[in-house]
């Protein structure tokens, strides 16, 4: 029989307001094996923890039950507490009487009763706990960063700074991501390329960083400290070592009709191309869908003009195997193509553009060299209408339910830039709310209104129509309580942002959970915002949710520090709640081996003494460094030889019995 101490937390009023904590402590104090029971205002506070430590010493406790918030919150905290008092950290069970009791029930008596039952179940379980020891596993001192945008680059640079190797895998031919496509940044209006291109150069120059551009992560296996990834290097048909990036080939290529991705398809590029002048790596890539040579075998002009002899039509896809200690997801975002919003004419008029397209139209490196022009006429627009929240904050099937967060600010920026360069151009912004929570953000928006004379109208555009030489915009002005009919030359849609479509596949291969919108979920919304629930997988940038550049960079650095925390250890302590097999019960049937997702079970011939008989038997052996503790094997095993430490069959049944009593 254990000597158990029970500690009931009030969590201020979070628990105590609904649960009679004293009554819980009193009732649990009478349970068999319980030698001490008390309640306290904040069990997780220093004094609360001291209370536990003192009780362990004073009463010689061998097991501890804490009735408090979710074990997902403070299990680790309390394990440390009891460990510092000399108890094995796994002699702890937590009854979740906050999230699963006080917060969801109103009736005090009912909630108190339930808390007692939950405590009783935890006591029943801890009776059967056994001390567990964490295993050590070595750490591969290299990180994988998936995505080479500002998030990926910042994470990689910070990890490299700490002296660890980093690989960046970027699916596009160049790193730089969306930030390289932006013209200016809010709220400072400094040039986006001027701040991102030096980062790109730093990234490429850093000897700790290896960039796999035009490559994709095919598969990842393993676990924290010991990931194995397969990287697919797509063929560029250009030898990146030899290519000098002179660009001569791109001037000679006769296939000129491919849409230029970097310019959001607003102009075209050649089949052999360098995405933009500051691309990193600065090498040409052949688009196999457009290349005449690759499609028909004829042409070969680029090969003839390349003085470096870099063209290699025979290049093949390559699979590269690499090992890592940690993985950072920085897969970024896309702006939706608002093709389902035809009331705004996106498909029907070239003068209706998304804000990212508008960004290219304003950029000095864009298709118009920074001169603002209506795409249909090439003339300076007289009036630009900006529509906010296109595809965001909705519930209909074409809508995203979330706020895309950055649109309010970049729209103010766009309007301000237009007014700055062309004071005569009218800018009207239709908004539902103007959301400016950020340092200097509201001031920035007010400047657009007050200094630059941008019209902000609270209301929504219902319809955009092609008029005679202009776009007719029908909208509501909710404050004036009237319907407006405006003429505009351009309409800019602040279309919703969404996670990059590659994220879903990566989430699955990493077993990192995602929300219903395909944003990666964080391990804890407040306390572990840059970690995925899967150990060793970290989140950086928009892949976790909409955010602006400084937020992205902060998260990128935070993710890097988490990675450094992993890589700086020589060994990781593994979760000791893992499977183990009782050789005397094992039949050697191999069924458990079949269901193990990690290949953690092998079979060995062992000398077994069973019922006084010594014999050699084929029995299951669990590799403790590999087992992740899911328990699939335990249910497959008919004889019950396989059990899970920390969640043993008799422990779970003890909980069942306690609950059903």
């Amino acid at each position: 029989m254990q000597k158990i101490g029970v500690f009931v937390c009030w969590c201020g009023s979070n628990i105590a307001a609904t649960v009679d904590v004293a009554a819980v402590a009193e009732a649990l104090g009478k349970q068999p094996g319980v030698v001490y029971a008390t309640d306290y205002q904040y069990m997780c506070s220093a004094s609360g923890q001291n209370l536990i430590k003192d009780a362990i010493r004073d009463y010689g406790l061998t097991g501890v039950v804490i009735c408090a918030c979710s074990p997902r919150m403070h299990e680790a905290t309390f394990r440390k507490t009891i460990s510092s008092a000399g108890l094995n950290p796994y002699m702890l069970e937590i009854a979740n009487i906050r999230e699963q009791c006080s917060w969801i029930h109103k009736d005090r008596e009912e909630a108190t009763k339930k808390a007692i039952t939950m405590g009783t179940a935890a006591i029943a379980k801890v009776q059967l706990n056994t001390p567990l020891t964490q295993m050590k596993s070595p750490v591969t001192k290299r990180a994988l960063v998936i995505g080479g945008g500002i998030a990926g680059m910042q994470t990689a640079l910070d990890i490299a700074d700490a002296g660890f190797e980093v690989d960046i895998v970027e699916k596009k031919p160049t790193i730089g991501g969306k930030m390289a496509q932006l013209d200016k940044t809010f709220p400072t209006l400094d040039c986006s390329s001027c701040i991102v291109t030096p980062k790109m150069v730093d990234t490429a120059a850093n000897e700790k960083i290896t960039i796999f551009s035009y490559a994709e992560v095919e598969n990842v296996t393993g676990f924290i400290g010991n990931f194995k990834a397969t990287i697919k290097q797509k063929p560029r048909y250009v030898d990146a070592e030899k290519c000098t990036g002179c660009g001569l080939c791109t001037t000679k290529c006769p296939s000129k009709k491919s849409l230029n991705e970097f310019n959001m398809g607003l102009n075209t590029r050649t089949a052999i191309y360098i995405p933009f002048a500051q691309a990193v790596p600065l090498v040409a890539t052949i688009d196999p869908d457009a290349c005449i040579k690759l499609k028909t075998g004829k042409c070969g002009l680029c090969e003839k003009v390349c003085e470096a002899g870099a063209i290699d039509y025979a290049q093949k896809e390559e699979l590269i195997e690499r090992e890592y200690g940690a993985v950072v997801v920085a897969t970024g975002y896309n702006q939706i193509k608002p093709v389902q919003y035809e009331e705004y004419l996106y498909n029907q008029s070239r003068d209706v553009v998304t804000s990212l397209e508008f960004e290219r139209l304003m950029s000095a490196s864009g298709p118009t060299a920074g001169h603002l022009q209506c795409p249909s006429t090439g003339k300076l627009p007289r009036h630009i209408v900006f529509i906010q929240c296109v595809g965001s904050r909705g519930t209909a099937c074409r809508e995203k339910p979330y706020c895309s967060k950055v649109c309010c600010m970049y729209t103010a920026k766009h309007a301000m830039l237009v007014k700055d360069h062309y004071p005569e151009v009218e800018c009207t912004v239709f908004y539902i709310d103007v959301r400016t929570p950020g340092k200097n953000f509201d001031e920035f928006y007010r400047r657009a209104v007050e200094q630059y004379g941008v019209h902000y109208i609270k209301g929504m555009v219902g319809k955009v129509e092609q008029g005679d030489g202009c776009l007719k915009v029908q909208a509501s002005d909710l404050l004036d309580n009237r319907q407006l009919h405006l003429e505009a030359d351009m309409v800019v849609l602040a279309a919703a942002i969404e996670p990059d479509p590659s994220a879903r596949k990566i989430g699955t291969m990493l077993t990192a959970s995602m929300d219903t919108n395909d944003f990666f979920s964080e391990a804890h919304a407040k306390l572990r915002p840059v970690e995925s629930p899967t150990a060793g997988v970290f989140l950086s940038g928009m892949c976790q949710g909409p955010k602006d550049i400084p937020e992205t960079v902060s998260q990128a650095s935070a993710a890097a520090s988490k990675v450094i925390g992993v890589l700086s250890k020589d060994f990781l302590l593994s979760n000791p709640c893992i499977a183990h097999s009782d050789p005397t019960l094992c039949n050697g049937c191999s069924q458990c081996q079949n269901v193990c997702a990690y290949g953690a079970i092998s079979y060995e011939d062992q000398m077994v003494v069973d019922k006084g008989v010594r014999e050699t038997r084929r029995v299951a052996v669990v590799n403790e460094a590999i087992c992740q503790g899911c328990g699939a094997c335990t249910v497959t095993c008919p004889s019950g030889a396989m059990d899970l430490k920390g969640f043993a069959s008799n422990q779970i049944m003890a909980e069942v019995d306690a609950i059903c009593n």
Partner: protein
Amino acid sequence: MKYSYYPGCTLRTKAEILNRYALASAKALGIELEEVENWQCCGGMYTASTDEIATKLASVRALAQARDAGCDLVTLCSACFNVIKRVNEDARTNENFITKVNNYMAPDMEYHGETNVLHFLEVLRDVIGFDELKKKVVNPLTGRKIGAYYGCLLLRPGEVMQLDDPENPKVLEEFIRAIGATPVLYGQRNECCGGYQTLNEKSIAVQRSSAVVESALSQGAECLITACPLCRYNLAVNAAPQIPVYYFTELLAEALGVKEVAENGN
């Protein structure tokens, strides 16, 4: 190809010609439209309330008859299409509604939305195919610049009607191309003509239909086509600028060379 056919009341009276052109064209295309027996008026307007049963019974009767005949139900009038298709959706998805309807009507076999409701345009597009239709055109309307007028009822609510993209429909434009003419896109093609406001508040009908016609004229349309008798009335009678307005079936009959046959009685 045989279909149950629901003409609706206006096609028996003021818009008889819409019906006749359609029947003659259908015949030329090898489509058999068998009129539902003893059909009743659909009511012209779908009542969008949770508690109306009676106003939807006529549609359920027609739907159940088509089910019993083993045919899809085809309509020509946009209003009938809208009412019947939406009632059918109710029958499929609103268990409370259809239970009450079945209890009230006590049919031999309960109706639960089994019938597929089609607009004649869908038959042309999805069954015949516009490429195939083009081959059957004997009298292409080459050079004519035609604006398609959809109005509301063919398209909305898009989730139920499923005829086309409610904001950027293409079916009538493809139809216009198939009969050899040139479609003219204009902004007001899916905006309301004023509908029955012509009785209640005529100024709204005048304002709406004028806006539609002006929009069409501004983009160079020479005439408009529509599937709805009320739309045709508003655009032809209430709009301030004048423009010829035809039923799409009239131009179809013309292109197929059966216009005279239709006008002179089948």
